[in-house]
C-alpha cells in the first residue's frame, strides 16, 4: 500500500446487515470529502482488500476506523482486535457494534438451537439435514469457517473503543457532521471530544425532537399501529402505542414518530443509562393506569414479545446480556 500522505481510513462490518455502509454512502457528495481527505485503506464492502494486507500494516497507522457489526464469531473478534491494534481512533459505528442490535436477540437461545432452527425449519429445503461444520477436510486441504460464540457481544466487550456512534443505521446527516468534525480536527480547527463519548447523536431523548403534543400519560390498553387510526398530533404513547422515544437517545430528529410510527429505540440508551430495556420497562410499567392485578395482567398481555420490544437493540449491551441457556453454552 503506497502512502499518499493522507491519513488512513478503514471501515469494517462484523455481524451486521450492511445498512450502516449504505447509510455512509447516503451522505452523497460528502463522500468525495472523505476521499479528498483520507486514504481509504480497508473497506470490504467498497473495495478489494485482504486481511493479510491489514495484518501487514504498522500498528496505529490507520487514523480512523468505523467498525460496524457485533461480535458473533471468531472472525469478527479477530478483525476487531486487529483493527484496534492498527487504528488510532476506533469508532463503534451503528447499533450492532454499540449494543448488539438484532443479532444479539440470538442471546436468548443456545447456538445449537439457533443452528438447528436455521437449517431445519419447515420452510428450509435441507433433506439431508446438513449442518455447517467449523472444519471440513476437502481434497484440496482443510476448509475452515469461523466458530460461533455462545453469545453475541458488543465491540467494547471485546476491545477498547474510543467513540460510540449509535443508530440503526446512524443517520446520514449525523455521519456527515462527524466526518466534517474529523476533517476540521485534521485541519486544526476543532478538537475531538473526550474519549468514550457518544458522537453523532443528541444528549437527551427522542421526545426532545418529537413535535407531538404531550399530556399526562395514563395507559389502559396497548395498541398496535395496524389496529388503530393514529392521531398525528398527540404523543403516541398517550394513544396506547408503545413508543420507545422516552428512553431512546435523540439524534434522529424523531424520524419514526413524525411518520406516525413509534420509535423502536435504535439510537440506544440516553446518556448515563446502563440498561436501556430496564429503563423503558419501568417507565412503561409506571404509566399503566390500574391497581387491579388482573387488569394490569390484561394490559401487559397487550405487549407482544416483551424482550423483542424492550431489548430489540440492546440485549448484548444490557446488564443481563443474555438469557441463561445461551450463556451456559460452552
Amino acid at each position, binding site marked *: 500500500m503506497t502512502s499518499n500522505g493522507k491519513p488512513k481510513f478503514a471501515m469494517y462490518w462484523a455481524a451486521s446487515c450492511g445498512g450502516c455502509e449504505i447509510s455512509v454512502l447516503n451522505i452523497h457528495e460528502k463522500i468525495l470529502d472523505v476521499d479528498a481527505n483520507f486514504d481509504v485503506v480497508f473497506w470490504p464492502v467498497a473495495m478489494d482488500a485482504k486481511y493479510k494486507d491489514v495484518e501487514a500494516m504498522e500498528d496505529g497507522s490507520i487514523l480512523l476506523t468505523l467498525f460496524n457489526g457485533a461480535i458473533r464469531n471468531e472472525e469478527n473478534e479477530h478483525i476487531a482486535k486487529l483493527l484496534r491494534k492498527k487504528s488510532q481512533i476506533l469508532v463503534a459505528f451503528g447499533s450492532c457494534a454499540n449494543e448488539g442490535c438484532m443479532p444479539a436477540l440470538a442471546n436468548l437461545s443456545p447456538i445449537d438451537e439457533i443452528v438447528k432452527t436455521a437449517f431445519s425449519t419447515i420452510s428450509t429445503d435441507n433433506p439431508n439435514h446438513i449442518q455447517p461444520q467449523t472444519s471440513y477436510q476437502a481434497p484440496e486441504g482443510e476448509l475452515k469457517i469461523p466458530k460461533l460464540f455462545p453469545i453475541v457481544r458488543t465491540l467494547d466487550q471485546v476491545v477498547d473503543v474510543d467513540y460510540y456512534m449509535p443508530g440503526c443505521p446512524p443517520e446520514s446527516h449525523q455521519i456527515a457532521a462527524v466526518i466534517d468534525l474529523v476533517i476540521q480536527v485534521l485541519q486544526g480547527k476543532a478538537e475531538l471530544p473526550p474519549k468514550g463519548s457518544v458522537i453523532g447523536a443528541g444528549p*437527551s431523548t427522542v421526545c426532545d425532537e418529537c413535535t407531538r403534543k404531550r399530556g*399526562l*400519560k395514563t395507559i389502559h390498553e396497548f395498541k398496535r399501529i395496524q389496529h388503530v387510526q393514529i392521531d398525528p398530533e398527540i404523543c403516541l404513547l398517550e394513544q396506547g402505542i408503545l413508543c420507545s422515544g422516552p428512553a431512546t437517545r435523540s439524534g434522529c430528529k424523531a424520524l419514526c414518530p413524525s411518520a406516525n410510527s413509534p420509535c423502536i429505540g435504535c439510537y440506544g440508551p*440516553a446518556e*448515563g*443509562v446502563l440498561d436501556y430495556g430496564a429503563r423503558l420497562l*419501568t417507565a412503561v410499567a409506571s404509566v399503566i393506569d390500574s391497581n387491579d392485578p388482573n387488569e394490569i395482567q390484561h394490559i401487559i398481555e397487550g405487549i407482544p414479545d416483551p424482550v423483542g420490544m424492550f431489548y430489540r437493540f440492546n440485549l448484548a449491551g444490557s446488564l443481563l446480556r443474555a438469557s441463561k441457556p445461551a*450463556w451456559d453454552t*460452552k
Partner: protein
Amino acid sequence: MAKERIGVYVCHCGTNIAGTVDVEDVSRWAGEVLKDRGVVISRDYKFMCSSLGQELIQKDIKEQGLTRVVVAACSPHLHEATFRNACKIAGLNPYLSELVSIREQDSWVHTDKAVATEKAKAIISGGVERTIWQTPLDPLKVPINPTTMVVGGGIAGIQAALEIADGGFPVVMVEREPSIGGHMAQFDKTFPTLDCSACILTPKMVQVGSHPNIQLLTYAEVTNVSGYVGSFQVTVKQRARSVNVEDCTGCGICQEKCPKKVIDEVFEAGLGYRKAVYTPFPQAVPKYPVIDRENCTYYIKGTCKACEKFCPTGAINFEQEDEYLTFDVGQIILATGWDLFDARRIPQYGYGRLANVFSNLEFERLSNAAGPTGGKIVMRDGITVPKTVGIVHCVGSRDKNYNNYCSAICCMQSLKFAHLVHERTGAEVYNFYIDMRTVSKGYDEFYQRLLDEGTHFIRGKVAEITDAAREPGEEGKLIIQVENTLVGKQMRIPVDMVILSSGLEPRHDTKEVAHLFGISCSADGWLLERHPKLDPVATMTEGIFIAGCLQGPKDIPTSVAQGAAAAARVVGKIQQKEISMEPIKASINQDKCSGCRICNNLCPFNAISFIEDRMVSEVNPALCQGCGTCVAACPAGAISGTVFSDQAILAQIDGLLLKNVKPLELVAG
C-alpha cells in the same frame, strides 16, 4: 476521587449476630482485604449501638480522621439514626455513614456459620463500596402546621382528638357515618366491669362536638391526601345531609313525621328500623339528621317532603350538594376501626339461614336498653325468651379457612354475653371455646365469676349448628354438634338460641385507605405500624399515625391508650415547631430531561411539575420524600436520587459480588 479513610465496625449484637457469624474473622477480613479500598480501621464490638460502641466510632473519627463509617449490625430501620447521630457528634456528616444489615439479612436467616460469615463479608464489602460514593448532605427544615386531622370518630379517634384539643391545638375530625361514636356506641355493657357503654362514651362524644378546638365533619370522607409531614393538604368530601345545619335544632320532628321506614343495617345491625331522615341514635353527635337519599320517597318519587313541611326552622334542603373541602394539616391520625366478620361465610353455622342464630352485634343491640327490644333478650319472633343459649367463640378467627389471628375481644365478649343472658333470662348458657383468653386486668376474675354463675364451658370447636332433629328432645331446637375435647366425646347440645362471637376484620376498604395515605397493610390486611413493639402508633410515613382496631383487633382500653399515645406523638411534634426533613431527594437533570412526562403523575407526594415553556419536569425538594419512584421510572435516566445514585448502587452490587477484591471474568467465549 480522593481516597477515603473508612472505618468498619462489626456488631456482635450479643449472640444475635455473633452466634451465627464469626465476627472477629469478618472484622479482620475487612481490615486486611478491603485495605486497598480505603478501610483504615476495622473493629468488632459486643453492642455497637451502646454508648460505648458509639464512642468507639467517635474516637476513631477524631483520631484516625475517618471520612466514612460503615457499621455492620442490624436493619437501618432500627439504628441508622443512632449511628448517623454518633457521626454527627464527632463532626462527620451523618450521610457519610452506612449501616449494613448482617443481622436481619444474614445471621437471622442462616444456620451455617461458615456461609453466614462469608455473606457478612460480602455485605460489608458492598457497604464500603457504596459509602465511597456518598456526599455530605444537610437536612431541610420545614415549619409544622399545628392542625391535626383525625380520621374516624370511634373511641380511639375521639380519645386522640380530645387529647390534642385539650392540649390547645386545633383538630379536624372526619367521620364517615352521620354520627361519631363508632362501634362502642352500639354496645350495652363493657367487659369486665359491666359499665354502661353509652354512659362512658357519650360524655366524650359531647365534648368532641362542643370543643372549641375541634372542627367536626360527619357524613364525610377523605378523598385525597397530598403533601408531607408538617404540611399535608387533605380533600374531604362532605356528603350532602340535605339539612342546613345552621338552621337545624335537632328537635327530631322530621324523624317523627317521616313516613319511610328503613331497616337499619348499620347501627341496629339489621334488627331495627330507622327513618329515611335520621340520626343513628338519640345521643348522636352532631345532633343534625341526614336524609338517606337512596330510600327517601322524595328522591325516589319526587313527592312527600313531609320533613320539610313539619320542620319548624325550615332546615331541610333537598337541593344541597356534596361539597369538597380542603384542609391544611400538619399531621394525621387514622382511627378507622374494624368490620365484623360475616358469619354467613361459615355456612355450617347457619347464620342468615337459621332464624335464631345471632351475630354478636345483633346480640349487642338485643341486650341494649336503647335497642329495638328495649333490652329484652328474645328470640327472632320478638317475644319468646330463650331457655337455653349457646355462645360460640372464635367464629372466623383462629381458623385457617378464614382468619389466622385471634380477634382478642371475643372471649371476654362471649363471657359478657353469657352473664347478660343469665342475668336477664335465667337461661342455661353453654360457651364453646377453643382456648380461654382472659389476659388483661380484671378479665380472668370475670371468667371466674362466670364459672361461679353456672355457665357451662365446653372446650371444642363447634362443627355444625343445625335444626335437623335426630334424637328425642331435639325437635324445634338448634342442635350444636361439638367435640368436647376435654372428655374426648362428641356431643349434641340442643339450644333455643345461638350467639356467634364473630371476629374482627380490617375495614373492607382498608387497602384504599392505606393507598390514600401512603401507608402499608400487613398480610392480614391490618394497617402496619412502624415497629410492632417500640413504635406501635407511628407508620412508615412521617406524620401519619394509627390508633385502635385498624392496626389489629383490640379491646376498648387498648384503643383508648393508642388514641392517647398517637395524640402524644402528634403534640410532641407540634411543640418542635419545625421538622428536620431527610435530605434524601430526587432531582431532575434539566439537560437530560426531554419532557416526556412519564414521571408527572407518579409522584405520591405531588412533588413533580411540568414546566410548559421549557418542556421539562421539575421536582419540588420541599415536597419530595425521596421515595425513588420517579428515579426508577425516568426512561432517560435524567432523575437521580441523593444517597441512592446509580453509581452508589452499582458500586454496592460490585462490592457484594466481591468484584472490588477479585475481579470476575464473566464473559463467555
